[in-house]
């Protein structure tokens, strides 16, 4: 059976009051106290500004990635007029609609919301409301109870628009894996992942009961102290989205996980183990405000105020979408160098060569698509552009193009980065919604997803890693 990609969805959740629980900001507040908190609050964007931000409009499909090239910069200073929070394959959820999803994601009484302070007057999204079919996500709690938990140190506050609206409590006083902030991080991944999956099902009119298998590529290490990272967020997400007939498993590979997950899902379909599979990735709260201190120092808005999520539906009906071509799947073997050249050879040149193709035969490469406007002020470089320059340089060295053709190669085979810096989320896959649209319109034939992972961050190896696969008509 040929695995095909039927649908893709990209979601964003504007979460300005969760930025303070991102790893970097949490540490800055701990060391600098309320002065950093005030600076942070002063540079937080409104939901409307987050919606009108050009890269976010690209992420949900209202604009093509290439449109960013001609746009005046800075992008945050040039909002898209009349921007919609809904796009052809994605949407942006406001924080007040996300908190009820957090409560819905929780089955252990960890998230306490005061519905007087945060009245649920309907969700801003059909995909979000589908996750709370009975209308209310859980019981309402009294402010006094919420405050008691916070004052005792058991709970951390949830705020919205300057007011305390709830809290998240720890579930063990000595297990740091069940600490309130860790649980909030995991619940945020679960709730945003379920929201991405729900958006996919609503968008494509797929019955939740049809889904047979779910692979989560989310990054959070779900588990208690005896099995930190034990995982299976996939089943938790599937349950929340009502996928009663689906089994699930997590794939962990740092930022390369989404591409591995797509390869695994496609392979299960090709092998006949399942007829369809969903790949889903929830957002990473730890990375909110990761570069906020540099953005604040340069008087920019805190651009990392959004959680990202992705979901993809694969099946074997060749009439429904382009195929995931497992004959052109790249892997980075243990004995390979982790140099930029070594990575390109392993992930791009070798799989293409095995299939008798050349670099220039692929229409578009979807590499790590980090939004450069977030990266450059922090001195971190334009990740997408560096990847495209490296790919072009390898094409020069293999005699496929001349050195003078590098800019043209990048323009025709690449694109500007537009994804939030959420680790696994920028890993090529946010382009799939655009690729599907291009393939259905007949303007695109093939794309190669190329994702890399920084294994050394976990201190278990100095290696890098990566995975790649071609999707084509």
């Amino acid at each position: 059976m040929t695995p095909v990609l039927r649908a893709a969805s990209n979601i964003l959740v504007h979460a300005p009051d969760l930025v303070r629980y991102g790893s970097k900001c949490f540490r800055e507040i701990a060391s600098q106290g309320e002065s950093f908190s005030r600076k942070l609050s002063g540079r937080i964007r409104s939901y409307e500004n987050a919606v009108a931000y050009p890269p976010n409009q690209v992420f949900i499909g209202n604009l093509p990635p290439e449109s960013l090239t001609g746009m005046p910069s800075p992008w945050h200073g040039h909002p898209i007029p009349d921007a919609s929070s809904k796009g052809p394959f994605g949407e942006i959820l406001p924080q007040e609609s996300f908190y009820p999803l957090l409560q819905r994601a929780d089955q252990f009484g960890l998230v306490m919301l005061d519905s007087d302070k945060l009245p649920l007057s309907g969700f801003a999204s059909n995909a979000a409301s589908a996750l709370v079919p009975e209308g209310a996500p859980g019981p309402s709690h009294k402010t006094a109870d919420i405050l008691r938990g916070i004052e005792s140190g058991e709970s951390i506050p949830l705020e919205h628009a300057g007011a305390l609206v709830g809290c998240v409590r720890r579930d063990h006083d000595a297990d740091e894996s069940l600490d309130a902030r860790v649980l909030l991080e995991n619940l945020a991944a679960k709730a945003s992942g379920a929201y991405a999956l729900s958006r996919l099902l609503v968008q494509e009119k797929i019955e939740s009961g049809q889904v047979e298998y779910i692979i989560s590529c989310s990054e959070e290490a779900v588990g208690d102290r005896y099995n930190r990272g034990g995982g299976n967020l996939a089943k938790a997400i599937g349950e929340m989205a009502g996928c009663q007939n689906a089994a699930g498993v997590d794939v962990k590979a740092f930022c390369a996980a989404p591409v591995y997950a797509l390869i695994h899902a496609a392979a299960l379909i090709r092998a006949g183990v399942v007829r369809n599979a969903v790949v889903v990735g929830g957002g990473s709260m730890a990375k909110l405000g990761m570069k906020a201190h540099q953005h604040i120092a340069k008087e920019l808005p805190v651009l990392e105020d959004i959680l990202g999520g992705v979901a993809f539906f694969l099946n074997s009906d060749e009439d429904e979408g382009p195929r995931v071509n497992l004959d052109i799947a790249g892997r980075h073997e243990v004995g390979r160098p982790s140099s930029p050249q070594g990575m390109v050879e392993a992930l791009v040149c070798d799989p293409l060569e095995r299939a008798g193709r050349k670099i220039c035969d692929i229409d578009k490469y979807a590499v790590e698509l980090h939004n450069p406007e977030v990266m450059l002020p922090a001195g971190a470089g334009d990740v997408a552009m560096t990847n495209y320059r490296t790919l072009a340089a390898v094409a020069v060295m293999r005699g496929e193009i001349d050195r003078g053709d590098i800019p043209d190669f990048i323009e025709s085979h690449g694109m500007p980065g537009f994804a939030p810096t959420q680790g696994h989320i920028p890993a090529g896959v946010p382009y799939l919604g655009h690729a599907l649209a291009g393939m259905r319109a007949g303007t695109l034939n093939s794309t190669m997803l190329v994702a890399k992972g920084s294994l050394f961050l976990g201190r278990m190896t100095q290696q890098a890693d990566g995975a790649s696969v071609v999707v084509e008509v």
Partner: protein
Amino acid sequence: MDLENQAAIKKLADEVGAENLMVVLGMPSEGVQIAAETLTTGDPSWAGPLAGVSLRLPVFHILEERVRAEVPADVYREKLELMEMVLDLDQIEKGLAEIRTKR
């Protein structure tokens, strides 16, 4: 510039004397300026072993023309040619030339 590299270079400078050292960077464009500043006037972030330590070392990048001219052709092709096409050499050369005037 990461703290381990700062510590290693400070240790070398203590052992053999800063006047006997030069530094050849092999990093991407983005970190070059800060690394060179750290090794010249001290760690601008005041976080590492070179905070407040002005070693005033001469700092070059491996892809600067006069450095790369010293690399054997076969080694250059294998290890450096690709990055020459990837990195912004003008930016690197200009930035380092300016920092070297501060020595």
